[in-house]
């Protein structure tokens, strides 16, 4: 989706892509379909000789990118599915997958794993996903095309999880509506801003209880399907509205990470927006900067944004730096 390099996606045909190692090859593509339970189905289109005689021992590997050490690997067996010769592998919603970026590879028999190319992805089931109630953790997996045109799956694993909804910046404050999954708001709940450089103390503002305690959203926001019925046992969930006065963040150029603490006794939950089909929100969700005037007359610019991990943060800059 975003970040996909043009020229590598000829519809209906496998592209002749040159991988980073320089060898020209016809690499296989995988079409990904997401389901409402957080699962992903990969349909791999083989190329050339392999397509004519698919090997018996084929698998899709997901390899976690790590800064150090060998990559964690998840091996999903590939089996013939449709009559068109594609091979299918399934990453079930019930399978626990560590948070991070998992590169997708194809391995045939005892051959070397080859990076997979993205195909046609049907991610409509991810939009406005209501997490199902049976598990104790919330898993999100969104496949996407890397800047080199390869297939990677971004995974999030949160328990509990604070999902951000509409965010309004106006009148010197930031008002965020959202849903807390896997925990309940209690008196003493607060919104916390932790400075990334730890040079300033955290800022905390209380979050009032809405009086609502449901898994459904309160006020309308775009894209919600009509009346989705959630079956199964419901996990605790709370709708919340948090208001952060922007002058509560002291002057000084830094980034503040936002957290929601459900009660005085519980740990803070990172505020993030992950329950949809957009793997990289940073450039797409854009909020206008607000200008705050300090007591000395100096002004600073305060602007919420989503990080590369789709977590919510606020950037405070000096005015002349925007």
């Amino acid at each position: 989706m975003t970040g996909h390099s043009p020229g590598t996606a000829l519809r209906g045909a496998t592209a002749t892509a040159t991988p980073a190692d320089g060898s020209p090859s016809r690499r296989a593509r995988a079409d990904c379909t997401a389901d409402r339970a957080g699962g992903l189905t990969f349909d791999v289109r083989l190329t050339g000789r392999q397509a004519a005689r698919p090997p018996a021992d084929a698998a899709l590997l997901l390899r976690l990118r790590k800064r150090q050490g060998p990559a964690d690997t998840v091996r999903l067996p590939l089996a013939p599915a449709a009559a068109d010769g594609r091979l299918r592998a399934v990453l079930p919603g019930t399978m626990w997958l560590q948070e991070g970026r998992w590169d997708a590879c194809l391995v045939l028999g005892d051959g070397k794993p080859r990076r997979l190319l993205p195909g046609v992805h049907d991610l409509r089931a991810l939009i406005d996903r209501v997490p199902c109630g049976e598990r104790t953790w919330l898993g999100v997996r969104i496949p996407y095309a890397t800047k080199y045109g390869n297939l990677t799956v971004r995974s999030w694993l949160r328990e509990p999880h604070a999902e951000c909804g509409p965010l309004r910046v106006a009148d010197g404050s930031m008002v965020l509506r959202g849903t807390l999954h896997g925990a309940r708001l209690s008196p003493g709940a607060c919104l916390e801003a932790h400075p990334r450089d730890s040079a300033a103390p955290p800022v905390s503002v209380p979050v009032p209880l809405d009086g609502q305690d449901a898994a459904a959203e309160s006020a309308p926001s775009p894209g919600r399907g009509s009346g989705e019925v959630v079956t199964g046992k419901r996990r605790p969930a709370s709708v919340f509205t948090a208001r952060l006065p922007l002058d509560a963040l002291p002057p000084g150029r830094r980034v503040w990470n936002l957290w929601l603490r459900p009660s005085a006794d519980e740990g803070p939950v990172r505020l993030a927006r992950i329950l949809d089909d957009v793997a990289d929100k940073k450039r797409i969700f854009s909020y206008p900067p607000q200008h705050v005037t300090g007591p000395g007359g100096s002004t600073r610019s305060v602007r919420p944004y989503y990080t590369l991990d789709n977590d919510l943060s606020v950037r405070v800059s000096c005015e002349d730096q925007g």
Partner: protein
Amino acid sequence: MVIGTRPGLNAHIARQTRRGPARVGQEHLTLATHPARLKLMLRGTYPRLDAVTTVTEADARDYRRILRLPGVRIEALPNSVPEPDVRPADGTGKWVVAAGRLAPAKRYDVLIRAFARVVAERPDWGLRIYGSGREREKLRLLIGELGLYNHVFLMGPAHPIEAEWAKGAIGAVTSSLESFGMTIVEAMRCGLPVVATDCPHGPGEIIRDGVDGLLAPVGDESAIAGALLRLMNDDALRQRMSRAALAASSRFDPAQVGARYEDLLTALVNRRGGAVHRARGALLGGAYASKEAVRLGTGYVLRGARR
């Protein structure tokens, strides 16, 4: 059979093809947007072609009326869009989707301003605009200025785009100028009824107003908003138009357009007489080649023609 795909190539073909092969010039833009010097050059060279194809009937009428091309067959053959690789939208996702280059002629500013009126009545719907281009920053600032940042999103480029159309329920095209309106056909093939401005050239020939889409005057925010709200507020109408859009847009399938090309090329070859056998082979080879180019090219080569 020699087929050129742009004025420069067409002029070479007109001037330099030896006696024998049929000469066809394709026009993917419009006569109306060709500069005066280019029109003079076409007037001087196109009479030597056997046929000129345009992508809209309106452009074909311009060629017949404005350039004097006696004996040249002028025919409108639309761009084609293959059947998408995803199943069509089911119409329940409350998203309006637009896609194309973020260029001034696309008038996404008009769409965004119209959407401000829509959100006032239906805040449960959103707008996704896919594409990249030099207007991006300007549009982003407009969204911020109008306070629409929770409803209107600049999604960046997406390949393939069908997967994105399929997430929406209504398509929107608000250009002031088009040469064909390819995105309208793409959206319809994914099952989206499209609200489009009736700009030159194309949208009015693709959409049947009130049946498989809605047309609005160029630049008219109120009319565009009204059309979007009409489809949002009437689920049954939206579903009916979605089915009609899916059915009607099949006429742009490469197989159908390819067959029309075959008819044209057959007629040209027969008109020239000569060795029918060899010509038929060349014709079918040429037609299949052009069909393949049309199939592969719709998302790639012909994209260059979409202005």
